[in-house]
């Protein structure tokens, strides 16, 4: 079930915005496609990133995927628990498996992302 309170990026990241802070993670579709996630490389705190940038990597036992940021701004927090226990991303991609938080530099960017229904349709066609 794709959560309806989130926005989605074409590279299979999700975004939750609260008070100008965006929390980013990868979708259930992405974690399932990757399989067992074993290593995570996240952006640095205070790093300035632009929407669409590759900001890290997610390694599973069978492949490597780029991690993109769907929104621009400054990285203010990363999920250290996910770095130490990457399997949490497989288990709870929309919950404890979140990846990083960004202080938005352009809050309007969120409007160009897909909602849950549009993302489900997008995945259907892949």
């Amino acid at each position, binding site marked *: 079930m794709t959560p309806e309170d989130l926005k989605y990026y074409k590279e299979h990241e999700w975004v939750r915005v609260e008070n100008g802070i965006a929390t980013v993670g990868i979708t259930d579709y992405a974690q399932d496609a990757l*399989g*067992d996630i*074993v*290593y995570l*490389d996240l952006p640095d705190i205070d790093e300035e990133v632009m929407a669409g940038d590759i900001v890290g*990597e997610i*390694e599973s*036992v*069978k492949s*490597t995927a780029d991690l993109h940021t769907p929104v621009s701004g400054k990285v203010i927090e990363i999920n250290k628990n996910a770095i130490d226990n990457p399997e949490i991303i497989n288990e709870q991609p929309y919950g404890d498996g979140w990846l990083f938080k960004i202080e938005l530099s352009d809050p309007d960017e969120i409007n160009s992302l897909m909602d849950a229904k549009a993302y489900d349709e997008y995945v259907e066609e892949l």
Partner: protein
Amino acid sequence: MAKRTPLFHEQQQLGAKFTEFSGWELPLYYSKIIDEHMAVRTSSGVFDVSHLGKINVKGAGANDLLQFVTTSDVAKIEIGRGAYTLFCNSIGGIIDDDIAYRLEENEFLIITNASRIQTIMAWLNDNKYDFPPLQIRNLTTKLCLLALQGPKSPDVLRAVFKEDTARYKQYSVRNISALGNKFTVMRSGYTGEEGFEILCDPKAAISAWKALISAGVKPAGLGARDMLRLEMGYPLYDHELTARITPIEAGLLRFVYFDKGEFIGRSALYAQLEKGAEKKLVGFVLDSGIAREGSIITVPSNGEIGKVTSGGFSPILRKGIGMGYVKSDYAEYDMAINIIVRGKSLTGHIAKRPFIEKRSVSAVA
């Protein structure tokens, strides 16, 4: 169109995710790769490895032909036993790594890599004319091969096949009747665990597969198989081994018997042994991150020293591990190295293989 083994539909029913490998459509995993890996390390798992080549060499010249085209001392293989061996070309390059079993005085079964079946068939046929008459038959698609692996595999073999596993020494081969079918059971494998490989016709394979799954053996796919062999530091053809790599470079000199007489590649290998190899296969462990095939290996003092041939994640060590060829001067345990992965320099060191403790008498490499 990729070939399918006779167990394809059984595997589909178990929810297998398939991948193409050497022209075959084979299970990559059924549930989760790490779960399948750990089942083999702690209990038991079963792989369908029917894609592996099965070549029967029979006749008066069988022993002498194999003595000439492989590096091992075939004459010393007793009836009912097998040995890991290499086929080399005239420059000493490895054209396949195989297991040769002596079924009878003048009959052998060669288990080859899937991608090398035609090469080995042609090699045997091209070289047979200097020897007494013999028959060479490719039985690959007529027979199935299951690999039952893991510390509990002897218990499973006893329970399901009613076999006394004490009768099996490493690389022994026996013909048995069980489950209303005939099987050829070998004590071997590619995981480093206790294990058996079970050769039979498709009908028998389906009944054995069902019996093993019913007995609680976890079906395991190529994903786990690759990680298991990597943890043991076992080479894989087309990665660590190619027709341009010699057994000396690959660290497989102990499988080359120079004193057995003439064999293809002997003089080239002997010359390299005297002169020394320029590159050597090493294992490495990374501090963090994972290196994949093709990544460049460097040392701080001297730049590039080699390339990764296999890389992955060890669920036991919970670290990135792998193998690669480096200039011989740098093939030293504990040497600090860097591996360039997607523009980043990962730190690690050259490490002894196997990467994890040797686990069974079946672990050979």
